[in-house]
């Protein structure tokens, strides 16, 4: 009678299998894409619905009609779509009303049934990567996650029309934030992902806000905290940027990281480390950026614009905002730097192009000038839209104003390898535990350098390969163009339309350790034309060969 048990067991498992198997087929089998529309592929390569309609429902004529594609597009896109949107809790109500506004204003007949779920930006990225198929169709996320998202196949590449839309409306900085290789992958929502200093005017005299040393004194005297989350790479890297260090990352078109080029482990870096030590060795230092700090004995908090309304609520008219202070090492003042970045709206890759197109339409609407201004008003989020940035509504917000002051000392946040956050934050931990001597600080920086290098153990092939880089091919020193080796001579795979005065260089291993142009200087193009770039390994000479 064991058999009956075995049978029962087996049968139950079978039901589980059968149930699972049903779902399994879609993954295992092949899915065919709706091919019905492909017949007119050649005839119509214009984006069908590049709708620049910025929320004004009375002007349907205002569609940016690019070559007649729109009409076909609108009828094709008409229909109801169920879309899930993940946005931070505070923005859910606003987002819901904006989707409603989109439904009533769009001229393409798109009706979105939106489910807006409160999911923080950090969670959104993690959740999307865990299971793309169960993820939201549109989601707010922070720019540093972009490469991770591209790598995980969680964001879809923007089409031509969408790329034009973001290019024409957003600041250069925010465009860099959505770019990987030469493609765009998301819509900029804000350009305020940086930090400024909030302070309690009843404790800190306004004239002290420029000096880190004075601020520390004030806090120590008042027995209050100076909250600055330096044990977080996003914050401590800013100190290094402030003294003139840099940290650059290179990705390929797939969002894969190729290399990092940074000089935190240098004499300049040592100055930054000394600055960090000044604060972290003080009893008033608090490793936090929590906005509720002012209710908890903080006098200063370094955090972003998203905390504006909460802080205003707890401090009232005692709230002061300012750019970050300067610190003094060996008689020289160094202004604390920061990262500046964007929050982005990502669109999940879709299997049905029609759904994808509708989702992109909604994404464009949600990131247009009107919607960004609404976010400035209700949430205090600084816009990425060029026009919205100079709008009086934006200029009236003190936090955004302070952030703008800080922007002079800030560095655009590039795509960053996920492990860097864990490696970078350790610098502060090590500095805090050290005795502040030069040797100890240098040791902390050296450790950081070793850790980060170990992440990029590139294959020899990539390490030894030469690439062309410069203000060429529509890029500005941010794309490596590959070359092919023949004997001693490397020749670029692509041709470039160059103008006299354009500059370029050839480098090895996609980093700046070894690079040649005109000797060590940049190679300057002498005459307009279309060229291949060549490089002779043995003579280290760069030359242009006219194409054709």
């Amino acid at each position: 009678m064991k058999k009956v048990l075995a049978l029962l067991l087996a049968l139950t498992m079978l039901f589980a299998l059968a149930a699972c198997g049903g779902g399994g087929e879609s993954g295992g089998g092949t899915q065919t894409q709706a091919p019905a529309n492909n017949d007119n592929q050649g005839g119509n390569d214009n984006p069908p619905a590049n709708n620049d309609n910025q929320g004004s429902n009375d002007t349907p004529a205002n569609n940016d009609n690019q070559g007649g594609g729109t009409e076909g597009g609108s009828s094709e896109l008409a229909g109801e779509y169920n879309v899930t949107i993940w946005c931070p809790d505070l923005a859910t109500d606003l987002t819901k009303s904006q989707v409603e506004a989109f439904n009533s204003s769009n001229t393409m007949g798109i009706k979105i049934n939106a489910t807006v779920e409160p999911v923080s930006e950090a969670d959104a990225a993690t959740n999307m990567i865990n299971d793309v198929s169960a993820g939201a169709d549109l989601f707010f996320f922070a720019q540093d996650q972009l490469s991770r998202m591209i790598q995980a196949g969680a964001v879809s590449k923007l089409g031509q029309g969408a790329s034009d839309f973001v290019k024409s409306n957003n600041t250069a900085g925010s465009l860099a934030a959505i770019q990987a290789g030469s493609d765009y992958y998301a819509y900029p929502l804000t350009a305020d992902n940086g930090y400024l200093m909030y302070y309690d005017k009843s404790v800190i005299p306004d004239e002290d806000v420029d000096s880190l040393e004075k601020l520390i004194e004030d806090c120590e005297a008042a027995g209050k905290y100076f909250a600055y989350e330096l044990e977080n790479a996003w914050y401590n890297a800013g100190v290094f940027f402030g003294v003139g260090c840099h940290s650059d990352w290179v990705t390929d078109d797939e969002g894969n990281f190729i290399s990092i080029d940074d000089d935190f482990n240098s004499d300049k870096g040592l100055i930054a480390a000394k600055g960090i030590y000044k604060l972290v060795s003080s009893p008033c230092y608090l490793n936090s950026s929590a906005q509720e700090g002012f209710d908890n004995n903080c006098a200063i908090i370094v955090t972003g614009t998203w905390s504006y309304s909460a802080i205003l609520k707890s401090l009232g008219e005692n709230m002061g905002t300012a750019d970050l202070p300067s610190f003094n090492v060996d008689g020289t003042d160094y202004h604390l730097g920061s990262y500046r970045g964007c929050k982005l709206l990502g669109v999940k890759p879709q299997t049905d192009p029609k759904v994808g197109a509708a989702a992109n339409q909604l994404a464009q609407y949600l990131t247009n000038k009107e919607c960004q201004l609404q976010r400035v008003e209700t949430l205090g989020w600084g816009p990425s839209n060029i026009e919205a940035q100079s709008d009086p509504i934006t200029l009236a917000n003190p936090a955004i104003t302070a952030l703008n002051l800080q922007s002079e000392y800030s560095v655009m946040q590039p795509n960053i390898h996920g492990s860097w956050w864990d490696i970078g934050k350790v610098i502060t931990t090590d500095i805090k535990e050290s005795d502040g001597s030069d040797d100890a600080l240098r040791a902390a920086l050296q450790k950081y350098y070793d850790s980060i290098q170990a992440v990029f153990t590139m294959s020899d092939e990539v390490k030894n390969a030469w690439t062309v880089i410069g203000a060429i091919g529509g890029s500005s020193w941010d794309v490596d163009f590959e070359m092919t080796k023949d004997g001693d001579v490397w020749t670029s795979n692509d041709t470039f339309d160059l103008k006299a005065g354009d500059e370029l260089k050839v480098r090895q291993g996609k980093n700046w350790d070894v690079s040649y142009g005109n000797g060590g200087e940049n190679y300057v193009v002498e005459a307009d034309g279309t060229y291949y770039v060549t490089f002779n390994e043995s003579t280290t000479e760069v030359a242009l060969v006219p194409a054709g």
Partner: protein
Amino acid sequence: MKKYSDLEFLRLSKWQKFCYRIIAFFCGIPGAIAGFFLNIGKTIQKGFQSFIAELKDIAITFTTGDWKTKVSYIVMGFGNLTHGQFLRGIMFLLFEIVFLFYMITTGGYWLSMLPSLGHQGPTKEYNAIYDQYTTTYNDNSFKILLYGVLTIFFIVAFIYTWRANVKQCKTINMILKRGGKLKRSGDDLRSLVDESFYKTLLALPLTGILVFTVMPIVFMVLVAFTNYDGAHNGYSNALFTWVGLDNFNTLFSWQSAGGGQSYSATFGEILTWTLIWAFLATFTNYFLGMFVAMMINKKGIRLKKMWRTILVMTVAIPQFISLLYVSKMFARNGLVNLTLQGMGLINSPLPFWENPMWARVTVIIINIWIGIPYLMLITTGILMNIPADLYESARIDGANGWQQYTKITLPYMLFITGPYLLTSFTGNMNNFNVIYLLTGGAPTNSAASGAAGSVGYTDLLITWLFKITTGAESQYYLASVVGIMVFVVVALISLVVYNLLPSIKNEEDYQ
């Protein structure tokens, strides 16, 4: 070492006895290990022999059986059906049909893909009409592995059932030869609530365990041999594939793996703290819990029920509320520090969560707060079970309170609660909630953090595993290797302690 006979042993002094036991234990280890492997060898040999015997039996049943038996080899349950055992016959047949149907429709596909875990990842395509990049999802490594494993389970179940079917035919033939009576379907059903009642009772629980515990563990053990991570998730980006023992090499290589130290050093560091934590957490709770229970049970103490209720109440409140709240209380600018500062007792805040030593001690102390009520409950019951006359006679002999405790209470308690202490120790090794909700692993262990993700001084193996899984790189394969190592450590400790415990004896004695 010298072996003492029982009589000689009894003559030894107490100290000598103790030393003798310790030495005997360590001398016994090589023998135990050798015995273990010898046992494995024997088991394999035995298994092989019984396998041969099974094959022989199958062959003999076939050659000696009648035509009905022979048909049963292909059409399962045929023998039962033709002999009037309809219930059994139909179930056999049904199972075979379902199995074949499944294998032909989907099972075969999963099985065939298992060696490669898929050929073609997702592909992107530009659709000019809609100006969209669309994605086509092709093979899915994750599902291939999952359903591949399930299919293998299913095949094993089928072979087992088929074998049962053959045995049935043999039994039927034997019974008929003896002129006996075959069981009818009714008999089968009746037996399910009587002598075979255990099958009825176990069917559901075991199925659940098989599908939701065994299968996932098998799957995750297999993941340790793949490169499944965030960059190879097998579905929306690159497929993952088998990599053999590479991941174990990574964990056990002493080479620096990004960051100041190697994975193995990090692993060793976390393991050490995990063991220290488990030991302290278990025994502080145990002794303090016992102490509180003894206080409440003390003669002449009134309101016993009230004291007990106050403590027990804290067991009822979900940990995520109490632990999260307490974690905020001890923050650098939390309630405790602000109150102490307000009272002028300290000048600068106490680094509860910032200093490694402070954080570890604080975690253990808060764990005492969490654990004492539970231990108090358990020990109360046992303390009351200690025969009162033991104490009475001890008192007459002039033993003081401390002597009574060490000579009577403690030995008795340790004897009874030995197994509980073991499970509680391994439970504490995997005590995710307390660490995760209190510190999340903080403060950061800068030396250990690096390519292995962020590691903190209070991280246990289990929270490290969680961080690896959900961290920036989602290194599932590494998490799986760490999980296997946790298993190995827990199993080793259990094995050693189990053999040392006095109260592990024949379980029938309890009844």
